[in-house]
């Protein structure tokens, strides 16, 4: 680019970037076009850029248009009416806000989650999830849909007390029920090393965006900034959903938050405040 900063003798000192766009588009007036052409005769850098711009225009012109995604207006209206917007979101008028500082901290853990995959088969072989241990067998389990406020859950220990173990980020076909979510919380507390899902069932890693969305939704729901140990994209009662699990090792508490894909509505939360050996 050094030649762009040292125009040829006789060339205008400033490269006419604004006019070059119109030149490539063919929208300049005759006088403007002649001025640009005069500049191009003396400026090899701008000639090269015009060639690049024309190549770009040709390439993008060949891109096909994708079909409409078939969004569900009712779901959009429901989300708009019921979901509390995340504070990190931009506003409609264009203000952009800095992300919460803790996001940078959990970012490293997310990268670790993506880098390593895991998994097990606690629920393997359980068709619809309905055969999982029932909620009644797991004392302390709550089964309520809550707004993302943290509700009545007792605060988890500080992030420093959390000892992240395996972090899971997969997509799978397992169809979780309320009972199987409760079972997931229970198994985490009782030493389950998250033999939760298997990549064998068409699972794939979550994209960074999916992982980030699930994390933000769940943390908003839980009212904490702790790093989730487990982020799973699955199905919950037949609907695409994320399951995000938080666990405080020291106090043997696990919380699992279920959110639908694409929004931050909390579908379901469960908590298992285990305090000792597995109750069963």
């Amino acid at each position, binding site marked *: 680019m050094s030649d762009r900063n040292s125009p040829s003798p006789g060339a205008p000192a400033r490269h006419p970037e604004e*006019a070059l766009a119109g030149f490539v588009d063919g929208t300049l007036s005759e006088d403007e076009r002649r001025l640009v052409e005069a500049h191009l005769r003396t400026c090899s850098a701008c000639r090269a850029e015009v060639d*690049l711009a024309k190549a770009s225009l040709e390439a993008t012109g060949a891109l096909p248009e994708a079909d409409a995604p078939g969004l569900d207006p009712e779901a959009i209206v429901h989300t708009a009416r019921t979901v509390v917007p995340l504070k990190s979101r931009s506003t409609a008028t264009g203000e952009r806000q800095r992300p919460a500082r803790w996001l940078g901290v959990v970012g490293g853990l*997310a990268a670790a989650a993506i880098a390593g995959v895991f998994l097990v088969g606690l629920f393997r072989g359980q068709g619809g999830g309905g055969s999982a241990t029932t909620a009644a067998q797991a004392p302390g389990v709550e089964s309520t849909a809550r707004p993302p406020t943290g509700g009545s859950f007792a605060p988890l220990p500080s992030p420093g007390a959390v000892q992240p173990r395996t972090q899971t980020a997969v997509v799978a076909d397992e169809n979780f029920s309320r009972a199987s979510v409760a079972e997931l919380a229970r198994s985490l507390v009782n030493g389950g090393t998250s033999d939760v899902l298997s990549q064998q069932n068409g699972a794939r890693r979550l994209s960074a965006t999916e992982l980030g969305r699930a994390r933000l939704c769940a943390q908003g729901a839980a009212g904490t900034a702790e790093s989730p140990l487990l982020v799973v994209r699955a199905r919950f009662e037949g609907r695409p959903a994320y399951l995000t699990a938080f666990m405080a090792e020291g106090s043997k508490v696990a919380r699992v938050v279920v959110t639908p894909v694409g929004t931050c509505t909390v579908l379901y939360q469960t908590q298992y405040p285990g305090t000792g050996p597995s109750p069963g």
Partner: protein
Amino acid sequence: MTSGGAHLPDRELAARAVAGDDGAFAELVRRHERRVYNLALRMLGRSEDARDAAQDAFVSCYRNLSKFRGEAAFSTWLHRIAVNACYDVLRRRRDVLGLDEAPEPPPAADHGDAVTTSVDVRRALLAIPDEFRTVLVLHDIQDLGYDEIARILEVPVGTVKSRLHRARVALGRALGGEPSPPSDPSNEGMP
């Protein structure tokens, strides 16, 4: 939801939606979702991210409909919301991964592109700075004019033109396998 008013202009539908007619809002979604989705698809690369961003954009649109005064075209206003939804996705991507580099490239042929060159173009698009890509997508792919893009982005028309030229040059270089030289989209000529 009530039925929708396919014959009504956007502004009238928006007014009806504000008054509680969800059918009118549904018509707005149907009318504009393809453009919003295609904008997001070219901004973000991955179809699932584009769908999320499109949904987010319409959620934000619904929430803010009462603020739509009608000074600008509804589509201009909606495009502004959609661009911001895309920036949100891009920011979350970087926040979560702590990466400043290009996002994951799109998987090959995930939405029907038949030729390898199309995949190359999509990858190259993701390699140029976001603010350059925005102008390029709006102008060269969505066929919006300089003036409307200036209103969408709330920048001077001259900035749109210079940004568009830089974007094309950057994409041309990316297509040729050249790394883009460091570019600061904020360092732009003013009109």
